[in-house]
């Protein structure tokens, strides 16, 4: 009898928790499904294949990719340093990584805009690259938003790799750089790829900082998330729906493909 009661409560526990898991899926799925209420197949393809939409799509893909490359390029060594070394100011560095999380994206964009109105920022705009209301500004906004997150994600990956591997490699004759390249990097490869995809997804969907620094000029600095906002502002519901569907399909599609391959090839 006791066994039965325990068995039933176990099943209830398991099923109620699985129900919550499905609830998360259901809530998001209903939101996605509701988009189709305003969708008309003929206008969908017209909107999808329009120059303005394709421009936004290509700009979003390229800008997110560049921002991700930059974030990972600085994030990997930064994360390694934070994970392995003790140095003066480490706590400050570690804390400021969360800046994009604690201030809103719009505030982050405003900070960028203010910086480029300072003497140093003005000099950079005039003599190096102009970031204000340009495509370079789009990449910069996405890079600034994702750099901290990418570093934090990669640090978690490196933290989980025991330092003993590197120690043993050094004992076998490897320099710190070789130990990093031949041991730490291959062991963290999967985690870094995972972090890159999440970083890319975050950059791809970035809105607040981008619109603040780069503006919202169609066929210039208008990324997909900005296009969603612009079309909604103009009461173009069908256009808004198409933009959201492209964003959702690409974002979730890439994450799903990654999960599929990660399961089949665990050491990739």
């Amino acid at each position, binding site marked *: 009898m006791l066994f039965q009661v325990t068995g039933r409560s176990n099943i209830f526990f398991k099923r109620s928790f699985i129900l919550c898991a499905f609830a998360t899926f259901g809530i998001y799925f209903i939101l996605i499904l509701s988009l189709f209420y305003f969708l008309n197949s003929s206008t969908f393809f017209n909107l999808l294949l329009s120059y303005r939409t394709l421009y936004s799509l290509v700009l979003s893909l390229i800008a997110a990719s560049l921002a991700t490359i930059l974030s990972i390029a600085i994030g990997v060594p930064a994360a390694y340093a934070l994970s392995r070394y003790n140095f003066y100011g480490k706590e400050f560095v570690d804390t400021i990584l969360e800046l994009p999380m604690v201030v809103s994206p719009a505030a982050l964009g405003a900070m960028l805009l203010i910086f480029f109105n300072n003497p140093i920022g003005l000099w950079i705009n005039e003599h190096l690259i102009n970031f204000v209301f340009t495509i370079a500004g789009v990449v910069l906004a996405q890079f600034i938003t994702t750099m901290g997150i990418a570093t934090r994600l990669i640090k978690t990956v490196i933290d989980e790799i025991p330092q003993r591997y590197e120690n*043993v*490699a050094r004992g*076998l004759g*490897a320099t710190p750089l070789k130990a990093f390249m031949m041991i730490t990097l291959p062991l963290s490869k999967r985690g870094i790829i995972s972090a890159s995809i999440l970083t890319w997804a975050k950059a791809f969907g970035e809105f607040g900082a981008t619109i603040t620094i780069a503006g919202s000029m169609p066929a210039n600095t208008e990324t997909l998330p900005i296009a969603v906002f612009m079309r909604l502002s103009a009461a173009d519901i069908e256009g808004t729906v198409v933009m959201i569907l492209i964003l959702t399909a690409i974002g979730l599609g890439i994450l799903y493909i990654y999960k599929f391959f990660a399961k089949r090839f665990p050491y990739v």
Partner: protein
Amino acid sequence: MFEIINLSTRVENFYLKDITFSVATDSIHMIIGPSGSGKTVLLETIAGFTTNNINISGEVRVDGVDVTNFPPERRNFSYVPQDLALFPHLNVEDNIFFGFNVRNVRGVKKVNQNQNQNMSFDFVIALAQTVGISSFFKRSIDSLSGGERQRVALVRALATGNRHLLLDEPFAGLHVGLKKELWFLLKEIQRKYKLTIIMVTHDIDEAFFLGEHISILIDGRIEQSGLKREARMPQTMAVARFYGLKNIFKAIVEDYSNNNDLNLYIPELKLRLSQEQLAFDLRKVQECLYVGIRSEDITFYDNDNQEAHPNIRGKIISYFEKDHFVMIFFKGDGLDTLMELEMPYSRFKNLGIKEVNLNIQQISLSIDTNYIFPIF
């Protein structure tokens, strides 16, 4: 040859204090101690993994060269940690040849040029055959059994050509049979390749089997260090406790005999015995000290023996059979103190002690005073 001279360090709140010992070339020096005594910290400090730690003082010398400030890759000794740290993304072959690859050595001929380090492809293959891993070079690390992993780790450490090894409990967690097999293997390759090894363990059997010299590390300090036969006799109370020594008694110096031997009286055993004063240091008359005797150094007789050693008559209170010996608790007539003894099972059986005779059957035990040692 390893020489560790006054090595001290601090890692967070743990202190390693003034460690000094030396390891002769072509020998194994075992460091034993309880968990948390600093064994791994000591090994990592010797290996140089804490060179950025500003709290290190003292010297580490290898064959006369002071390597204290050298990075690990320039110290020329291989380190095998407790979990072996076999690289999971590389197969057995790539693990073994990792040392070759990082040194940018390409091809057999080039390898052979480094004769002084005895590094050659043929050497590694021969080593792998000796250790019995040559048949699974292409296997992944995940697919290896416990014993195979240990063998791969040993070959990887030696394949670099390093003849100085630091081993951090590499056989922990293995079952007894496999452990013994690997002890013999380690002894064999140590003798064959003339290795100089510092190995830490908390397993006393392992330490005494493998080591020629033994140091006992307790609370970050070497409590005792010496040859195996010297290490059998704990010199301090901390070591005695670590060994689990039960037969510790307070003794009083009664006087000195004509040949300057020390006459001791142990009130708990009502026992008088004479000891060479040299081993006990110079003691004053009436001074108290502690003495101990290992449980396996006490002999049993089923009647009064005629030997010169002091006898204590009494009864067996209880006994516990273990795999190859019997642990016995003995109480002398008129004494309050229990003594712990050990003897092989076959010998115990010959004594004819049965459960029903406990506390009844009179028996004598004999203490060879040569095995009584002072605890400072």
